[in-house]
């Protein structure tokens, strides 16, 4: 396994309220090249998991092992290697890019920080190359984030994460803030990248339909606990837990026949 999350617990305290436990013994693992979906409603703890996965927060107990290293204890050179190999795309395409840096600086920052390309000219070439890969025009690298639409910003964020060649990409609700027609572009891009680069993806989302489309295996979270986990077909076609079933039943389907029928059935039941 590339990444193993083993029984992590985490609580937040906000004085004067008593501490609230947001994660209870959460475990799952990720194989190389696998696309794993973490789904849950608000309060399920999925964003906290993302923070712990990215070593931005440490669990109180349990461990997160990446390629043999304990993520929450990594320091110095070891942490830097982790940062290079595990990258992240955030939800908000408007807040996740430093507004005062040009696209070239933004995408090239990882190359600079990890000293992957010593010269500015080589860095620029690599930036242009990755921009083409994610469907951006390299001529736009002199521009600043404010002149891009939400979907384009998400492409910049993906390019910024991928340019240093990570093995895992953690995506925290990367399409939730995008319009439907643009959302599909970004989903397709992530899928292409995953296949082309053999990338492992942890895809955190509340939208089960998006997760079904993108992920091979799924972890369902509810109030900080893993409710059910398994391959895509099991979760979507044969959910075992009542919570998963209820969640799936509530997702609207863009087909009036099915939507109506489901609603009518429910009315008969109640």
């Amino acid at each position, binding site marked *: 396994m590339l990444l193993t999350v083993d029984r992590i617990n985490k609580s937040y305290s906000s004085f004067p309220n008593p501490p609230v436990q947001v994660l209870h013994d959460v475990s799952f693992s990720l194989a190389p090249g696998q696309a794993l979906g973490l789904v849950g*409603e*608000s309060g399920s703890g999925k964003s906290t998991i993302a923070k712990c996965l990215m070593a931005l927060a440490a669990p109180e107990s349990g461990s997160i092992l990446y390629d043999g290293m304990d993520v929450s204890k990594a320091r110095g050179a070891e942490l830097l290697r982790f940062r290079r190999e595990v990258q992240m795309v955030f939800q908000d395409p408007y807040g996740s890019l430093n507004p005062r840096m040009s696209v070239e600086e933004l995408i090239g920052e990882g190359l600079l920080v990890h000293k992957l390309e010593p010269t500015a000219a080589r860095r620029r070439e690599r930036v242009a190359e990755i921009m083409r890969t994610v469907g951006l025009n390299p001529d736009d690298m002199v521009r600043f984030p404010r002149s891009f*639409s*939400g*979907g*384009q910003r998400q492409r910049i964020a993906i390019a910024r994460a991928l340019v240093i060649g990570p093995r895992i990409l953690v995506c925290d609700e990367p399409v939730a803030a995008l*319009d*439907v*027609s*643009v*959302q*599909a*572009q970004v*989903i*397709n891009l992530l899928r292409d990248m995953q296949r082309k680069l053999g990338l492992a993806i942890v895809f955190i989302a*509340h*939208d*089960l*339909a*998006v997760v*079904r*489309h993108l992920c091979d295996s799924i972890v369902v979270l509810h109030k900080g606990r893993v409710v059910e986990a398994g391959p*895509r077909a099991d979760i*979507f076609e044969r959910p075992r837990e009542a919570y998963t079933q*209820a*969640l*799936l*039943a*509530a*997702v*609207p*389907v*863009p*087909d*009036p*026949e*099915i*939507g*109506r029928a*489901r*609603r009518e059935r*429910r*009315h008969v039941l109640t």
Partner: protein
Amino acid sequence: MFPSKTQKPLVEVRGLSVDMPLAGGKDGLRIVDNIDFSIAVGERVALVGESGSGKSVTARAVMRLDPVARLSGKIDFEGRDLLTLSEKEMRHYRGSSIAMVFQDPMSFLDPLMTIGDQVAETLRIRGIGRVEARKRALSVLDELGVDRAAERLGSYPHEFSGGMRQRVVLAMALVGEPKLLIADEPTTALDVRVQDQVLDLLDDVSTRRGLAVLFITHDLGVVAGFAERVMVMYSGRIVEDGDVHAVFKDPKHPYTRGLIRAVPRIDQDLEELYAIPGAPPAPMARPAGCPFNPRCSDAFDRCRAELPAVLPVTGERVACHLHDRKGA
């Protein structure tokens, strides 16, 4: 314009345009451009579109909520043009004939006022006595499935969950017994299970009361499950308007078709999502001709030159040159 099957229209909108003034500039920015639509008594209509399509602005225009917006055209509500009313007359319509609920219930609830008082307030303003107003508030909260409503009249908004708050806001909207409810993305901020409950509730209330609903959303799944008719907006115009079954089965406008194919499905595995290239234009940068032409795979010369008119196509209304050519 779209003939409703059974009833006379409750609202008839003709040539509605909305211009927003720009800071410093003289010319306004045209957000909604010359749209026509009607809603029959008790009809559930969805208005779908992406950000910047003008769907929310259209909804707010019907309520005349933006004091700075310049509205032109006609909005007939039971035979009276709302755009000719004075602000005082319009206030009479808001809440009693037309009510509105929004995405964020918390911003419409006064944190320092009890739920009971807030729901009753709509009635109190209209001169209905305390006891009577409270009684009716209670019955509406009951109808909307607020558990132990009588006990909770004295509760404050922060004691309620998101879904319950949205019910309270709905109660505030419905207590005045409106004929039209405008719902602007009321379930977008909710978790799916709560969204589902609120939609069921709206469905029930609308059927029971014969309440017409104009439901603004970007979620095609919600449209399919809730609406009888769907209007698709793109860049300030209605590009397709028809029965929800017909539109989903056989979308006539390339934008509608692309949109439906772009939605991932919970009930099937799709190999590849269809992605409409590009992004919706900003209102200040609309292309010439059909606003969708730069993203449309079927566009031809006429699309780049001429704005398509909204024309009837097999029981629907569609604004697309492809259909005009076939018809001619």
